[in-house]
Every structure is written in structure tokens, then in C-alpha cells.
């Protein structure tokens, strides 16, 4: 009987409004030439209608606050509520980004200390907070690598090496920076194929982008080897920090020899994902890249904080956002790091790794195939349902959809692309053992269902507001904006 919630436009009635919200009208003095002819199509609803509509819509979502959400590579951990409440203090929310720094010393002190803490947890020499998400952090990093080679007159270096396991943003970023992509294969054990690496290294090599532990859920054991070869070939090493959660306080990218790293603060250092964002892709750099950091960066003169800009960093690659990046996300990361402290950081790595290895063990006991059975899981791991797909016709996607009926969000499906029928599972450190056991039990139950009645599993989910959606139709009969019916 649960009705689908209508569109807000369908609730609209001409003349209705949440009237208390806006100030009384003033007469505008816009010359006619510039004026809009017809009012834009926006809904006209009461405050109650809006509240009820969006409250009901929210209830149609799975989320961390309501479900286990083991989306691999996404670090869907619980974010302490205090990070949000402090970042939303009225003084922080009200501060204009261009207000004189004399009126923002409290805020800037937080940002400066955040930079320092991020240097410490990554082992890098400098940090810029300005990139607004992981992908923009990647862009920043590759742009700095490019600037570095150019500054040295090393103009031929226009290739970026990317392992086949890499996240899609890595090659997409290289393209945005005008680089050519050289993809290299992973070995059957998940590590990079050094021979393949050697084969692509050349005087055109600008650098390599690595995620470590990589998105196959394993730590690259020969990272020292790789570092030596790339640097020897004149390239720089880029560290995709999306998986930093797995190694916090255990090993530092700077110590591994990386020249530049982006962090997904919204994954590792706690910002709720908000149904798609916001994030922060703060970058850390080694000595070589210090001059190229994007501005602004917070600097300190004695007790006074100020923005370092193009005048301070004349070789900076420039700016990446209208102001300083996602300040509110940065405040949340700051609060999170202060609450965890140094011990807490290590606990993150330890418990996220423990949970992943435990869940992998549980699933293997239940008869599932780990993609890398001889390896330790990092904070995530892959199981492959190739066998189930082959024998029962039940795919990774079918398992994913059926899990929703069990009240669990699905793991990441079909990524990384090189493992067939894969589920990339990242339980994170904030889940309890009971939750992991419940998930393993659900997987086992679905396996039994798949054997008994594959068709039933293939038509899941059954208990959500909608059944399986038709993606093909969505792309073919494109309906991406509501238009008022013309009468």
C-alpha cells in the first residue's frame, strides 16, 4: 500500500507557498530589456508539504545511520555526529571566505593544524587543502607533476602509468591533464607486474598513479621496487589515498617514496557522503613538488594565520575552486582527527583491517571464493561469484540486489573491472562483529536461495519502494527533468 512519493512539482498548487520564509516584496528596478518574461517553473508548496515530502524521500534511502553499507573503496564508516555539529557552529557557517583574516583566526587555526596533522599521517612535506574531492586531488597531483617536469624543461614527459586495477578517476584525471595513459596489468596475486612496468617506463614517463593497498584489497608488497624503478626512469609517484584508512599509523606514503598524494578526507577522516558529496581531496607533496602546490594554503607568521597565495608560491599551479575548497568538510576532518588522536588513527587501521579479514574468513567458510585467497585482506577484499554465475546463472548483481532485501546495502559490484563477477567488500572499523556475522549469514542464505530458486533471486529486491529498475530504458527514453504538462 506504500505509495511512491509524488514529485514536489506534482504537489504544487498555484499561489501556495511557505510564506513565512521570504521577506516582503521590494520593487526591483531592472530595465525591461534584461527582464525575465515568465516566472520559472518551481514548485509552490507549503512548508509542511516540503518537510513531509523530503522526510518521506529520505526514508527511501539506505544509509550508514540505518544500515550496514559495505561499499568497497568508499569507506562508508560512521561519522561521529560531533564533527557535524561543530562544523555547523553559526560563526563558521556565517564567515565569508573573503573576509579579512583578522576576523577568521579561529577558523584558520583549525585549518593550519589540520594541514600539520595531515602531513604527519602521510609523511609528506606540505599539504594543500583546496581540492574539493578525490578526483580533483588527483587532478592537482598530476598537474603538479606536469608543472614539475615543465619547470625542469623536461617537456617530453606526457605519459602516466596506471595499473589496470585503478579507480576510473585515475585514467580520467590523466586525460584531463593532457597525459597519455599507459595501463599495466596486475599479477594473479594482485601485485603490480614489474615486467609490465619496466616495459612502459621511458623518457616519456611523467609518473605513475598507485593506490596502496590497491582496490583489489591487497597491499603492494614490492612498493620499494616500484618506487626505485619509476624514480630511476625520471618519473614521479602519485599515491591515490582513497585507501588510507587501511594503513593509518602503520606506514606512511611519504616513507614509501611517493611524491604526491591525495587524501579522500570524506572517506578516511569522516564526512558523511551526503548521497554523493561533498568531499575533500586535500593533497600532500614531497619536497620536490612543494613550489607547485595549489593555493591558497594556510601559513603562520608567529601567532597570526594568513593565506599563502600566488605571491607566496609563484610557481603554484594556481587555483582549483572559487575560494579555499570545501571548508566545512575540512572542519569535520579536523574535529575527527582531534577526537581520535594518534592512538585513534592506528585503531582505525587495525580494526578496519581486522573486520575485513574476519568477514573474508567468514565468507570463505560459507563457501564463497576470495579473489586473492592467499593474500591478507587490507581494509577491504574481493569475492568473485564467477562460479555462481556460471553454475546457477546468479550474478554478482543478483546477490547485490537480494542483499537489499536482507537490510544490507550491497558491496561495490563489478569493480575493479579485472575480477569477473566481483563484490568489493569494505566493512570499515565502525561496524560490530554482530553486524559482520549478520551479513555473512545473509550471503550464505542467498547462496542457498540461489541454489533452490535462482529466478527468485534474479528478480530481487522485493521489499524496497521499487523493484529492479530498468536502466536501459532510463538511458534510451531519457527523462531527466520534469516539465509541466501543456494543455
Amino acid at each position, binding site marked *: 500500500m506504500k505509495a511512491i512519493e509524488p514529485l514536489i512539482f506534482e504537489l504544487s498548487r498555484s499561489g501556495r507557498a511557505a510564506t513565512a520564509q521570504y521577506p516582503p516584496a521590494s520593487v526591483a528596478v531592472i530595465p525591461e530589456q534584461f527582464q525575465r518574461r515568465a516566472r520559472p517553473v518551481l514548485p509552490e508548496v507549503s512548508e509542511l508539504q516540503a518537510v513531509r515530502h523530503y522526510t518521506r524521500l*529520505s526514508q527511501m*534511502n539506505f544509509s550508514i545511520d540505518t544500515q550496514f553499507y559495505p561499499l568497497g573503496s568508499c569507506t562508508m564508516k560512521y561519522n561521529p555526529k560531533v564533527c557535524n555539529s561543530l562544523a555547523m557552529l553559526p560563526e563558521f557557517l*556565517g564567515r565569508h571566505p573573503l573576509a579579512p583574516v583578522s576576523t577568521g583566526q579561529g577558523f584558520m587555526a583549525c585549518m593550519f593544524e589540520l594541514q600539520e596533522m595531515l602531513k604527519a599521517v602521510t609523511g609528506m612535506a606540505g599539504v594543500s587543502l583546496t581540492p574539493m574531492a578525490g578526483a580533483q586531488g588527483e587532478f592537482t597531483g598530476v598537474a603538479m607533476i606536469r608543472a614539475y617536469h615543465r619547470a625542469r624543461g623536461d617537456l617530453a614527459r606526457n605519459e602516466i602509468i596506471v595499473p589496470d586495477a585503478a579507480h576510473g578517476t585515475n585514467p580520467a584525471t590523466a586525460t584531463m591533464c593532457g597525459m597519455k595513459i599507459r595501463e599495466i596489468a596486475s599479477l594473479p596475486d594482485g601485485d603490480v607486474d614489474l615486467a609490465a612496468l619496466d616495459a612502459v617506463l621511458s623518457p616519456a614517463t611523467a609518473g605513475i598513479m598507485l593506490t596502496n593497498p590497491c582496490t583489489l584489497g591487497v597491499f603492494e608488497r614490492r612498493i620499494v621496487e616500484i618506487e626505485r624503478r619509476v624514480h630511476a626512469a625520471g618519473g614521479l609517484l602519485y599515491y591515490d589515498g582513497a585507501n588510507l584508512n587501511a594503513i593509518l599509523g602503520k606506514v606512511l606514503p611519504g616513507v614509501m617514496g611517493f611524491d604526491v598524494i591525495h587524501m579522500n578526507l570524506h572517506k578516511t577522516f569522516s564526512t558523511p557522503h551526503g548521497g554523493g558529496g561533498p568531499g575533500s581531496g586535500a593533497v600532500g607533496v614531497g619536497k620536490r613538488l612543494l613550489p607547485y602546490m595549489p593555493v591558497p594554503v594556510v601559513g603562520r607568521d608567529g601567532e597570526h594565520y594568513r593565506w599563502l597565495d600566488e605571491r607566496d608560491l609563484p610557481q603554484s599551479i594556481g587555483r582549483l575552486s572559487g575560494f579555499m575548497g570545501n571548508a566545512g568538510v575540512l572542519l569535520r576532518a579536523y574535529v575527527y582527527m582531534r577526537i581520535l588522536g594518534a592512538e585513534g*588513527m592506528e585503531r582505525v587501521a587495525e580494526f578496519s583491517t581486522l573486520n575485513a579479514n574476519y568477514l573474508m574468513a567468514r565468507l570463505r567458510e560459507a563457501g564463497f571464493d576470495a579473489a586473492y585467497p592467499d593474500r591478507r585482506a587490507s581494509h577491504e577484499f574481493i569475492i568473485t561469484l564467477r562460479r555462481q554465475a556460471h553454475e546457477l546463472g546468479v550474478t554478482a548483481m543478483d546477490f547485490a540486489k537480494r542483499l537489499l532485501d536482507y537490510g544490507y546495502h550491497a558491496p561495490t559490484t563489478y569493480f575493479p573491472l579485472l575480477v569477473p563477477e566481483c563484490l568489493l567488500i569494505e566493512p570499515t572499523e565502525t561496524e560490530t562483529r554482530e553486524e559482520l556475522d549478520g551479513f555473512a549469514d545473509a550471503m550464505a542464505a542467498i547462496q542457498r536461495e540461489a541454489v533452490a530458486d535462482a529466478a527468485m533471486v534474479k528478480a530481487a529486491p522485493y521489499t524496497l519502494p521499487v523493484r529492479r529498475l530498468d536502466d536501459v530504458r532510463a538511458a534510451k527514453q531519457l527523462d531527466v527533468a*520534469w516539465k509541466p504538462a501543456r494543455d
Partner: protein
Amino acid sequence: MLDRIGAASIDELFDEIPKALRVDSLPGVPVALSEMEVARLVAARAATDGRPLNFIGAGAYEHHIPAPVWALTTRGEIYSAYTPYQAEASQGTLQIMYEFQSMIAGLTAMDVSNASLYDGASALAEACLMAVRAHRRSKSARILVPTTVNPTWRNVARVITEGQGLVLEELPYCTEQGTTIPQALARYDGQDITALVIQQPNFFGQLEDVDALSRWARANGALIIAAVNPVALALLAPPGEWGDDGADIACGEAQPFGVPLSSGGPYVGFMATRMPHVRQMPGRIAGRTVDLDGKPGFTLTLQAREQHIRRGKATSNICTNQGLLMTAATIYLSLLGPVGLERVASACVARTCELVSALSGLRGVRAAFAGPRFHEAVLLLDRPVAPVLESLAAGGIIGGHDLSRDYPELGHALLVCATETRTSEDIGAYAQTLDRVLGR
């Protein structure tokens, strides 16, 4: 749990990391504080910064945010969900995306919108890249950008597009009117120009002659990229109606829709276009479809443009976007509706008018430009701006944005802004304080 794994200790789980690389402490990270201690520390810092009276716009605008906006946006089910990859478990987020897209399409009078980009500056950069992809006939990758476009946005656009060889060429403006000189385009007549950017209102708050500029672009085979303040669209002709047949891409910063200033972010970029260009547009898009039972529902669509499918050939590398702020903007617009938004926009115009009168009545202050404006204006002072701003700040007034670095040709130029949130008393307080400061 270790038993089940078959490991003797947690440390053993890290045994694939080469020993030599391991660290065993993080000296640069302070010891843990309790929630109570952090709350007190951070609240004290916030209190230090206080809540001065703000008269800066310059790309980020202080508007009243109706109370339901954030009461709803911070609901756990919205706040702590991921990108809606599993559509069936994310109908709330997806429907909000669809509603946002519809609202942006309506406001800009374009066919189709995405569901956010990072911010206005990066949205302009993406619009330039998109124009190059969309305009197959143009080979030059040359884009004309008036200097009346937000200077930071121009910087960001350059940084983000230069890797792909785009050339952004600047157009001069009329220092009397503070608007782009349509005649300046004459020297590009007949050249291969991929696109012309037009910001409305421009960085000075002045209204550009968007019709004349658009007509030139269309006549010369260049695409039109509109960068617009979305609140102003309640009153101003929307990009879809510029010139004879409208702009090709509209982009901008939707922060004014319910997103607090918060030192610069997170904000929310938007982009809309014509249906023929939709496959070149970056960013997430939600589409309406049906489920197995024929029931309508929403899902991410046109994902083949995106990095997670197309990798190196994607329209952009964007992955995480500004979904939460997009949600806030959608709720904001639902609460205001067309009439409410129009009232906000009208109040902006009226307040800024009042502000300009009040300040330019002071000795040593005059308005730089005549012409119609939205909610910003350039004032010229009789002395350097920076120290004046510091003195104002000491008096609790954030007096505006100093233009002398980006527009030295204007002299001691100050960009001020008043939205519906500034009362006559506020404006009076500013005028009085400024008078005192200048009197010294």
C-alpha cells in the same frame, strides 16, 4: 575474531607491509581529546571569529536560509548515504537529484541539468571543456572570456583546461559601464572561436548585454556559455532565452540557494545544456524509468559518460560531487517557490541600490559604474582599500572585496554587496562606520 582469521595478533594482519616501511607512532598528531574537550576548543575558536556584519559577495552570497533546509538535509538517511549506485536503495537521493535537475532546467530555461559539480568556478572550467567536446566543427579550442567574469573563476578555468590545450582569451570591458564591450568582439569576426563565456550579472554586479553578445557568438559559430547567478534568474532573462535561440551551456554557483557561506565551501556548482549536447555534459544525472512491475522510479543514467565506466575517455574525472548541497538547494527552492525567489531577488536589487546611495553619499566614495546592476556594485575610494577594510573589520563590518589586485586599472576599487539579509539599519551602520574610518 583473530581465531577465525587464523592470525595470532592484529599486527600479523599487516605482515605483507615491508618491515622497513613500518612506523610505530605518529608524533605529529596530538593525543586524543574527548568529545567534550574538542567541542569546547572548537566552540571557543568559533567564538573568536564572531559574527561581523557582512557586505561581501564576490561569488559567495549571504541569504536567509529557511530553517527546514538544514533540518532536513542533515537527516541521517540523506546525510550518510553514498552516491546512489544501488538505485532501489536510494530512491530518496535519486528523486531529489531529478527534482534539482528539473528546477535548474526551469530556472535556466535549458533542457537538461546535471546533479551538481564542485562549485561555480570548476563548473565554468568544465563548461569550457564540454564546449570543446560539443563543438565538433571548431578546431581551435579558443574560448573568449570577458575580464568581467569572476577573476578566480577565470584562473580556475585556466588551471583545469590548460592540460587539454584550451586557450582562454580575455575580452576587455568598458571602464565607464563596467560591462563587456560588444565591439571588442569585432576583431574575432570570422575566426574559429569555440565558445564565448558570458557572466550575468558580471563580477562587478553589472548587467551585460547578453542578447548582443549571444547574437555575435551565434553569428560567428561560437557556442555560448552562460555563467549565471541563479537567484538573479528570478528576475533576469534566463540563458535559454539569450539572443535569438539561447545559450548552449549554462553554469554557475548554486550556493545562494540555501548553502551557508562557511568560509568558501562546500558549495554546489550546476550545469545545464541543450538536449543534443547531453552526452557531452559531465556529472551525475538521475533519470526516471520503471521497475520490473512497471512502477516508476529513478536511477543514475547516461553513466557511459562517466569515469567509472568510461575511464580515460570520460567527459570528466568527477566522481564525488556536492550531493548534500544539491539537496539543500532543492529544498530551498521548494520552500521559496517562484514568488519567494522573486521577492528575494527583488530585495537584493533594492538593498544594493540603497547601499550604493548610502555609501556614495559619503565624502571620498563614489560609484564606479552607472548602468543596471543586480546585488553588487563597485565603489571607488579616495585611498587604498585594504587598510579601510581592516578598520571596518575592527568595527565589526566586513566592508567588501578589494579589487585593486585583480583590476588595478580601476584604482581604489571596492566591490560591495547587499542581499535581502541586510536591513536599512545595517546599511546605516556601514555608512556611519565608513564615514568615521574615512574621516580619520
